[in-house]
């Protein structure tokens, strides 16, 4: 009789193995934050600017992190605690993980959600989630410094041009994701427009009266406003 796969999936061994990978993500965040803070002081950023950045980032992260959390709960049911926790702290896009897990399980003949999960299907799901995410790590890690050199060469010493390139990229990245919701013509469209409007209004008030806390909380309120508008929208 095979051991129940969920007992294995939630075993101490799996917690330790998952914790090792999550620890590296946290270590990198600490190493980079510490270096950025000290370099920031050397190149003339004030402590106040950097504290503001840290604080606003904490506030901004809460809403989206709760969405990630709700995705983790969806995974939790079929994959157990440690793997769901690790995968969403790691590469973790919920859509990707669910797809990879179901491809892995179905390759050994198990449909997640309808068939009973077996140990081998669980292992196959874990391997597939792991192997499928390697591409991002390899490409990003090999190319980060090279892309930096290319960008510097292309824009020369024109710092303003770098800013123009960055804002072009930001507008397109968020324009592309917004366009999907805008053209859907449903409650997502309402949420997208309302989020944008609340953000604009709050930023304008914060800038004209120079209210620092409002700048820090603007995105948080825009998310609440967008969600409420979508929920209350009558159609």
């Amino acid at each position, binding site marked *: 009789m095979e051991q129940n796969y969920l007992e294995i999936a939630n075993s101490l061994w799996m917690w330790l193995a998952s914790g090792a990978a999550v620890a590296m993500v946290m270590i990198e965040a600490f190493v980079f934050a510490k270096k950025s803070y000290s370099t920031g002081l050397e190149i003339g950023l004030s402590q106040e600017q950097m504290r503001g950045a840290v604080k606003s980032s904490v506030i901004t992260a809460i809403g989206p992190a709760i969405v990630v959390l709700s995705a983790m709960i969806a995974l939790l049911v079929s994959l157990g605690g440690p793997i769901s*926790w690790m995968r*969403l702290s790691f590469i973790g896009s919920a859509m990707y993980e669910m797809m990879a897990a179901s491809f892995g399980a179905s*390759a050994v003949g198990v449909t997640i959600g309808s068939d009973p999960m077996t140990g081998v299907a669980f*292992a196959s799901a*874990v391997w597939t989630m792991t192997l499928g*995410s390697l591409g991002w790590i390899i490409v990003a890690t090999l190319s980060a410094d090279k*892309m930096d050199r290319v960008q510097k060469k292309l824009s020369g010493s024109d710092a303003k041009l770098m800013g123009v390139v960055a804002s*072009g990229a930001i507008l397109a*990245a968020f324009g592309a994701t917004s366009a999907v919701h805008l053209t859907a013509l449903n409650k997502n469209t309402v949420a997208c427009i309302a989020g944008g409007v609340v953000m604009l209004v709050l930023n304008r008030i914060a800038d004209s009266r120079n209210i620092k806390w409002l700048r820090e909380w603007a995105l948080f309120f825009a998310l609440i*406003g967008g969600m409420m508008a979508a929920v209350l929208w009558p159609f």
Partner: protein
Amino acid sequence: MNANEIYNQQYIPFIVRWGRRINWTAMALCFSPALVLAFVFDLVPPVSALATAFVAIASVVGVPWFVEPVSYFPIIGVAGTYMAFIAGNIGNLRIPCAMVAQKVAGVEPGTNEGSIIATLGIAVSIVVNTLILTAGVIAGAAVLQRLPQEVTAALQFLLPALFGAIFAQFAAQRLKLSPLVLIICIALVLLGKSGLMPRWFGSISTLLAVALSIGLAVVMYKKGVLK
């Protein structure tokens, strides 16, 4: 040493050295759950099944492996790229935190100061995200599934609101560029939906939007329309 030299000759080399070391270690360690299943619990899927599953997932995410690091690089920079591609959740969490941090600190994206503040913002978002997930997994599914239905219903609209809000924040700063970019993006989405394009079109449409938009921004800047 002036500020630019400190950034280029000390900060960036440090980030590249440690970014590589930590990312390669993280990549090796992400195999540990699979290896524990194999060596401790004797659960090894057949190689043929794994090959099938890998081909299936690679056919979906193979293009994004290359497209996403390139598309996001101009926004998150060197340090952001190392962190974001092991911590994930880039568009929905890392970039919004970087953008708000830059706004609050009053620095511009694309400058040395902007990149340092963005790195701080992304690092903080990783810590917050990991802590919330850890608390959630300890609290367990049972507690979290008792969230009122209204809350879970509202949460599915958080991401559309987020994307609209970040777009609006930058659109307000670039009033000449942003309407054109939005038209390009909507046109690409409609083109993708029209059925005229091959299926892989969807996975490169963000890259196309980024490339077109950067090109347009550079042309407008050179002609003196953008400052």
